[in-house]
């Protein structure tokens, strides 16, 4: 089966430090794949490498059969590889709707001339944006400024903006950070719902519970390398993961046998 995203031994180095060291992973179409690991193991560096924000020292990123290794970030986004940011990075000068429109619209060379004459003309993008609002249930925020809504709402707007570009794969960088357990579970449900929209996801988080609950497939990252990969059930039972990450609290059920 052809993977939607295939990372082939990619490395990211800052100076002499290998933040990501020969990581390979695959995302199949229509699946929700999780990537977990404690803070500082290179999760965001990996997302940056996949989305083109940081150069890779080694390896290839192949998206839907296209080698993206040399493509700048905006081209990757246009090919259908969207991402969110841990710090959200919304366009604070634009309304929520305009945030989404900016991501949805793909101007052609003549767009600027059309804008001079008739800026308010109807486009397909408006329908796409309305659809995204409906899917995430945030239509009420459309005309607000990102500066005046709650942090939880801002997170949803961040996801919505990424979705507005009609991606086939969405890279989510710690969408649950700062949310409590129930909010986090609710987010998981919404994300599963997005799979029906034909959008696969790579969910990066350090919230073990969220990732193990909602993902079809999980990678565990430790010190820049893949420690384990498998279904959530396999990860829960993986001795190396338990040792390195789940720690002592998880030990009692498996510990005595060893």
């Amino acid at each position: 089966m052809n993977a939607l995203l295939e990372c082939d031994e990619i490395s990211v180095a800052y100076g002499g430090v290998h933040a990501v060291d020969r990581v390979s992973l695959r995302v199949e179409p229509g699946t929700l794949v999780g990537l977990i690991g404690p803070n500082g193991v290179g999760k965001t560096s990996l997302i940056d490498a996949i989305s083109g924000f940081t150069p890779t020292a080694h390896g290839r990123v192949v998206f839907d059969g296209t080698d993206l290794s040399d493509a700048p970030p905006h081209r990757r986004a246009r090919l259908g590889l969207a991402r969110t940011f841990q710090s959200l990075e919304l366009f604070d000068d634009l309304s929520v709707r305009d945030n989404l429109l900016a991501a949805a619209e793909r101007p052609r060379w003549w767009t600027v001339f059309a804008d001079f004459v008739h800026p308010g003309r109807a486009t397909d993008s408006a329908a796409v944006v309305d659809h995204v609002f409906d899917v995430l249930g945030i239509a009420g925020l459309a005309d607000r400024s990102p500066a005046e809504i709650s942090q939880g709402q801002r997170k949803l707007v961040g996801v919505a903006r990424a979705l507005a570009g009609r991606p086939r794969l969405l890279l989510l960088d710690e969408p649950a950070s700062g949310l409590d357990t129930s909010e986090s579970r609710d987010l998981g449900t919404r994300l599963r719902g997005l799979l029906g929209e034909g959008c696969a996801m790579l969910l990066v988080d350090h919230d073990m519970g969220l990732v193990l609950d909602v993902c079809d497939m999980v990678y565990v990252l430790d010190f820049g390398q893949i420690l384990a990969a498998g279904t959530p059930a396999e990860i829960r039972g993986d001795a190396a993961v338990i040792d390195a990450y789940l720690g002592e609290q998880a030990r009692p059920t498996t510990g005595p046998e060893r």
Partner: protein
Amino acid sequence: MLTYRGSGVVNFAHGAIAMWSAFVFVELRVNRAYPLPVPGLPDRIRFTEPMAFAPAFVLALATSGALGFVCYVLVFRPLRTAPALAKVVASVGVLLAVIALVQLRFEETSPSIAKILPFEPVTIADDLTVPRDGLWLAGIAIVLAGVLWAVYRFTRFGLATRAASENEKGAIILGYSPDALAAMNWTLAALLAGLIGILGSPLTQLTPALFPFLYFVPALGAALLGRFTSFGVTCATGLAIGMAQSVFLQVQNDVGWWPDIGAREGLPFVLIVIALVILGKRLPTRGSLELAHLPKAPAPRPTVVKVLVPYALTVAAFFVLSGGWRVALLTTLIFAVLALSLVVLTGYVGQISLAQMAFAGVAGFALSRFAYRWDVPFPIAPLLAALVATVFGVLVGIPALRVRGINLAIVTLAGGVAIQEFVFKNPTYTGSIADGGARIPNPELFGIDLGLSTEGDLFRPVFGVLVTTVVMLVAVAVANLRRGTVGRQMLAVRANERAAAAAGINVAATKLLAFAISSFVAGIGGTLIAYRFGSVSDASYGLFASLTVLAFAYLGGITTVGGALTAGAVTAGGVFFYAIQQSSDVFALGGGNLELFIGGVALVVTAILNPEGIAGVMRAGIRRPPRHRVDLPRPAPRQVAV
């Protein structure tokens, strides 16, 4: 460079401070007086006889140090956390104010070299030849760089400064006051600027409009190459540029005043730009997030009434008003076009350009070529000319892909200087001054002469109609741009380049497009200037004017069309100052310099207190009451569970 270290600000006013102290020095030595830098107070303190060299020197130096200190305390301390644009604008404000002040205070605005030179051997050398002066100056610069390096490397003060520029909070925790450190560094930097100004002035001309740039632009280039932290590299680059330029000066003297000097003078600037772009990734502000926001750029809601009523009133005004008012109105409208060019570039995309007037000039000279020499008919010739300006705009904009903020301001300034030196001073492109510059025929459409002046009539209203129409079209286009697809993407780039790229927006293309549109609009402005005067020379589009354009555009409100129109109204020579002039004689005496001074001060105040400009204040005043009424009945925001 010292300033940057001290407070993270690149001060465009440095050249101005250097100039002021040089003037003070000359004044003390020659005219027996100490000029006071505040208008309203008595002009100067007079002495009975010329001051001896040493006290005059010390006093002039102390003045520059004090000016630096005052600049920091009054202007740049309040702006510490402001965006780079506000700092640039504030320092441009200081520069304008000082230049205006020099022109107000000193009757002879370009004291000749001969007058100062006899006093100079004391400081410079027993050998009087000019190269010897230069050598001494270079020697002093090297020694200064060495001393500075040692001070910053080995003393507690230097260590603290470096610490504070790396991490302000850390320095506070360690018990140093970053404020005091910054103030000290500012004073020191101003002292040095003053020193170089005094020592260097005999080597060059002390012309207010020229002097600050002569030293400042190459100096900034050198400081940029030294990455604002290395004294050695900065000094070496500065000397290299200086030497290259003085060699050119020598060649100029041999060859005569005109032929090809533009090329030689412009070369160092081009080299700076190229080096900057290559080093782009390593520049200090690259990639660092701008925490403070630019002023808001609200979406305009143009309606037929909002557009046509002011249009009709303005057109009517041209027929009703007298000649002087017509000229003021023309100045206002043409300036508004230039300000609109910055609304696109700075207001929408957050890029700074100090080369707008250079773009306008390119279009002006191109228009002369198209319309006068090649007989291209009216609406086509100015459009083609503006397209030529667009090409230059994109070229100058290319560095913007790699440099940001304050560095971009410097690069565009260097670009403007390069255009000026290469193109405007080259008679091959611009025609010779002896012929009255490059001529522009009156615009003519369907056999109707639309020009400002004909044989018998100096201020024809029909030209006003033409200009008003152009301004209206440009204003509507710029307002529409904000509301459309491209405008959204521009604001997205302005807000956050990373996020914009992640959203699939081509950041580089968006910036270049903004430079293209902006320089096209500036080009249109340039052709209007050309049509208004009937001929253009390099003086029509001075470098100084580029600074004024940015300054007044910011003052009016750089993010909106309304702001650009306001900028036109309040600019020097515009309707606002004309009205004041009509009502009082005070301004007539200043000969335009008082406006410049007030403009400079207003600019500083605007940058500190009110980043949205005059139009922003008026908008807030108009909108506030209804906003409350709208807010109350609005349903509670829908609760979104996350």
